[in-house]
């Protein structure tokens, strides 16, 4: 609870720390997700180079979906 205690202690000037936390925490999951996604896509392209075009299209689609979560965090850090 150290972090929450710190946040409670700096009540009134929570803005900067809170904003940083929002974006930082929001970027963890999508970061791992995109890592897995692209890694698997490269694996698939290496196994079957003739399917590279299809894999690449699907990969970009997947990245677009995963990335949206991180971008929500980015936008929220401006809103709060």
């Amino acid at each position, binding site marked *: 609870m150290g972090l929450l205690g710190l946040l409670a202690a700096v009540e009134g000037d929570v803005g900067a720390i809170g904003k940083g936390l929002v974006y930082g925490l929001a970027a963890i999951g999508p970061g791992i997700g995109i890592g897995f996604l692209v890694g698997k896509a490269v694996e698939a392209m290496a196994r079957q180079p003739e399917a590279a*075009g*299809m894999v690449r*299209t699907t990969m*970009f*689609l997947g*990245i*677009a*979906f995963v*990335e*949206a979560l991180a*971008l*929500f965090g*980015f*936008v929220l850090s*401006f809103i709060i």
Partner: protein
Amino acid sequence: MLSTLVSLIASDVRPPAGFEPPGTEIFETPCLIGSGTYCANRVMLYMALSAIIIVALFVVAFRKPKLVPSGLQNGMESVVEFIRNGIVMEVMGPSGLKYLPFLTSLFFFIFVNNIFGILPFIQFPVNSRMAIPAFLAVLVWFIYNIAGIKAQGLGGYLKSSLFPPGVPTLIYILVTPIELVSTFIVRPLTLAVRLAANMIAGHLILTIFFVGTWYLQWKLITIPFAALSFALGTALVAFEILVAVLQAYIFTILTAVYIAGSEHPEH
């Protein structure tokens, strides 16, 4: 040396007292024409300029089409062909070719407005103003819903999008609300937020690096850091070109996926 150059150009420029990082206020521009609700700021003028640029590009490229294309016609044809083969045929199949003009206009509009972010003397990505991606997302929302209703009828469209087949009956209690939210709310929201947030982030980072360069060049001892900041900012300009193309591509391909999904739910 650089500071003397700057002071030669503008004699009233003084070194700043402290570093003030640029914030979201760099996206707010004053009214140029009119005031209040009916106000044209420079973002709006850039958007009109982008329409003129796109029309001019297409007219010049395809006014006198040749069988063996060269120059501008060659370039434009390869982009349109990429959208046709890489997006429409890949995602929608031959039945989606009727959406090719719409998707091409969408791609060019988003791309030109993104690339404004790094064009000298303009340097403002129009799509970083939320209203413009939001309008595009609402447009796409109407198009894929109307396409689905036209293809399957209202009942059939709602049934295929809210009650996906092959799910045990009791699970529908869980699946239907999720599908309702994801199809009709999250899709347009993510489309708009993705584009706007990418452009806001890119513009902010470029501004921070170049403002940092300007701030660091006042003292001799920090000039190496100014050079580093300038180099990184320049590299990020190249990255912004990539992001501009990629976001236009992703917006277009997601539109194609949504239209294809509402027209042919079995895929």
